[in-house]
């Protein structure tokens, strides 16, 4: 035991030793920096909620028009955002799901499903919000929706996409993401369990579900399951920029990557080298002392110029979300595509080579090497064609189309829809669909118009179907 005065001297030294080093981390502002760099390079799964599973429009280039690409990458301009409330309380809730599969050691941090909840004071309706491909339940687009919904008087519960690695580990019963039906079942069970554990038992008058991009399709699936299970009592559903078919778009998405970036290893390397050189040259003539988020946001406009560059950013976003899905699926099913099932990596093992290999894996590879082998074994008698077919919104059945409480918001230039798919939506959801002229994929989420229509739809007072 140290004498008190000496102990005090030691205690006094520790925090002092801490303070300066921490300045370093702050100087580099890692978090904000990541976000900014990723806006440009699309280089991380957190940024992946920019898009669903895109198919492309127009045969020749395979690219959407410039305005749509730009809207998709940059999102809603701040001055067009709807007015939000002054403050929205946010609780983070982590729940262990009893059906979770044994957690691979390398994913040790995904033990509980992490969701976010914003409670109202008294009784209120509950909005369940589901994120898009690869995104978590606190992503930027979620925050936009949360602000609008909370401001309109909802309790808001937001969940990660079933394709987010956190969900795959903590709440998937298979470890293989991407099957609309199976993901829906897991999501449904998870929501039921979370609602039973909400802090302070909020009073809920009724439940609505919504989601953007792939999350829209997930929300619709929730409602279909609820019609059978009756555990949630979901009243209305809204799909924001949903995909119509998931797997039939595989070829087109892989082509987008191939066109805009090229072969995964050399193409990505070239993209990186070009980005590095351009950033370096901009930085050298700028007044900035550090490469921080202010600089990077400014640089984004200078670096992203051609349609190809915007396409590359979008394609890369998907590829990196896919890489995480692929890795988890391979690990859980022991498919042996990128990791040795007999010797899976541990938390301390270098993964750079695995990561590089994964970046080269296409959606088609995922389907062929992980997804199809698993489901063909699980569901005796099924075929590859059947697996593809059951992952279409239109295969969810007439229930969706005849359900008058199921609404859609989309854009005429949404990259993830082709003409036929848009026509199918417009026809099938006539009177319950708002189609905006411009916005690309999610490039107008949170705007005044989108928010006003969203709230009107959820409250069943939307009358804009005639325009």
């Amino acid at each position, binding site marked *: 035991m140290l004498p008190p005065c000496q102990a005090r001297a030691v205690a*006094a030294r*520790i*925090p*002092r*030793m*801490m*303070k*300066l*080093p*921490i*300045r*370093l*981390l702050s100087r580099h*502002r*890692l*978090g904000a920096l990541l976000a900014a*760099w990723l806006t440009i390079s699309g280089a991380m799964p*957190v940024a992946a909620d920019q898009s669903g599973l895109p198919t492309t429009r127009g045969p020749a280039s395979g690219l959407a028009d410039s305005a749509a690409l730009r809207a998709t990458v940059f999102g809603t*301009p*701040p001055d067009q955002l709807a007015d*939000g*409330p002054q*403050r929205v309380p*946010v*609780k983070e*809730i*982590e*729940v*262990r799901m009893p059906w979770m599969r044994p957690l691979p050691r*390398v*994913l040790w*941090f*995904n033990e509980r499903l992490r969701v976010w909840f*914003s409670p109202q004071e008294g009784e209120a309706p509950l909005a369940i919000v589901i994120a898009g491909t690869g995104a*978590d339940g606190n992503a930027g687009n979620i*925050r936009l929706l949360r*602000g609008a919904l909370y401001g309109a008087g909802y309790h808001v519960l937001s969940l990660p996409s079933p394709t987010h*690695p*956190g969900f795959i580990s903590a709440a998937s019963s298979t470890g293989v993401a991407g099957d609309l039906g199976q993901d829906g079942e897991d999501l449904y069970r998870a929501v039921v369990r979370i609602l039973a554990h909400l*802090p302070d038992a909020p009073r809920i008058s009724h439940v609505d579900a919504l989601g953007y991009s792939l999350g829209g399709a997930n929300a619709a699936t929730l409602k279909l399951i609820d019609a059978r299970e009756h555990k949630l009592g979901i009243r209305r559903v809204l799909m924001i920029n949903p995909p119509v078919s998931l797997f039939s778009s595989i070829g087109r998405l892989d082509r987008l990557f191939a066109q805009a970036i090229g072969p995964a290893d050399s193409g990505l390397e*070239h993209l*990186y*080298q070009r980005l590095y*050189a351009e*950033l*370096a*040259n901009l930085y*050298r*003539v700028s007044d900035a*002392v*550090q*490469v921080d988020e202010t600089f990077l946001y400014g640089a984004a*406009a200078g670096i992203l110029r051609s349609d190809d560059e915007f396409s590359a950013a979008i394609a890369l976003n998907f590829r990196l979300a896919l890489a*995480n899905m692929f890795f988890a699926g391979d690990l859980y099913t022991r498919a042996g595509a990128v990791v040795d099932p007999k010797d899976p*990596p541990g*938390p301390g093992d*270098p*993964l*750079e080579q695995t*990561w590089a290999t994964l970046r080269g894996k296409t959606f088609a590879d995922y389907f062929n090497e992980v997804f199809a082998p698993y489901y063909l074994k699980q569901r005796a008698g099924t075929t590859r064609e059947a697996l593809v077919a059951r992952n279409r919104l239109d295969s969810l059945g007439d229930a969706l189309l005849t359900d008058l409480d199921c609404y859609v918001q989309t854009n005429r230039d949404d990259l993830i829809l082709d003409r036929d798919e848009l026509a199918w939506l417009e026809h099938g959801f006539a009177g319950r669909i708002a189609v905006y002229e411009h916005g690309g994929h999610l490039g107008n989420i949170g705007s005044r118009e989108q928010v006003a229509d969203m709230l009107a739809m959820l409250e069943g007072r939307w009358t804009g179907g005639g325009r």
Partner: protein
Amino acid sequence: MRRAYTAVFAAAMLAGCTSTGNVRVRDLPDDRPAESRAMAIEAAARLAAAQEAEAPRADEEPTALAPPVTPADAPSMRTYDPFERINRSMYRFNAHFDESVFLPVANGYRRLPRPLRSGVHNFFGNLGEIGSTLNFALQGRPVYGLRALGRFAINSTLGVGGLIDVAKRMKLPRAATGFGTTLAKWGMRPGPYIVLPLIGPSTLRDTAGLGGDFGLAWGIDAGGFYRSSRNSWMFGVANSIDLRAHIDFRYYETGSAFEYDTIRFLYMRQRLLEDEKLRAEGANLPRSTGTPAGQ
């Protein structure tokens, strides 16, 4: 008195965190949509204005002479990380520490009124200008150095001891530097990637730089905050908390097994990009080609 501090500290740590078996609940700082929107609009306007006035300035430091960076100059996508196993376990340790101690405290701090927090932040930032001034001088970048010194002078007086960032409103934004950058200017390569305990991503060079910064602050002991005051430990704690509260980062929020790789990639590229400016300003900093970045 010390007991009171400790009590406050413990209360802040425990505030808003409950855990029962399978469920963990944590209160996060409120979302402030209206404020975020206003800030985004302001940032967009600033950006537009900056691009408007872009006319490439023959800037303070002459950079025009150096040839532009070409894609062939880009460092390898791989990072020199010979201590990877130790680094990865340190990263994990940092994540645990952040989750259980650092972040809860920072979240408690984030609930304080904004003017109070910005006062604290400006105060620490202002003391940092001393080190920046010296380092800019050592780097041979007098114009930046004078800016840092000017900011210190203005904010210490007009800004009531640094509580208000008056200089920023006079179009003298903060631009900090440290001894790590000075070492770079003197020709030292980044060296291997290192994850430091509690602090996170660094390199051998930046670790040395950190030691330099620390020694400098210790030696100068500005205002007696760093060494002489009986309560300088409180100062250190407050500084750490304020800094953590300003970093919007959450360990493993990505859920990805490749988070370590991604952060290593980004940190190293950021430092290497910053080296490019020093190189353009005449630093004799050899490029490592054909080897993992940093080597």
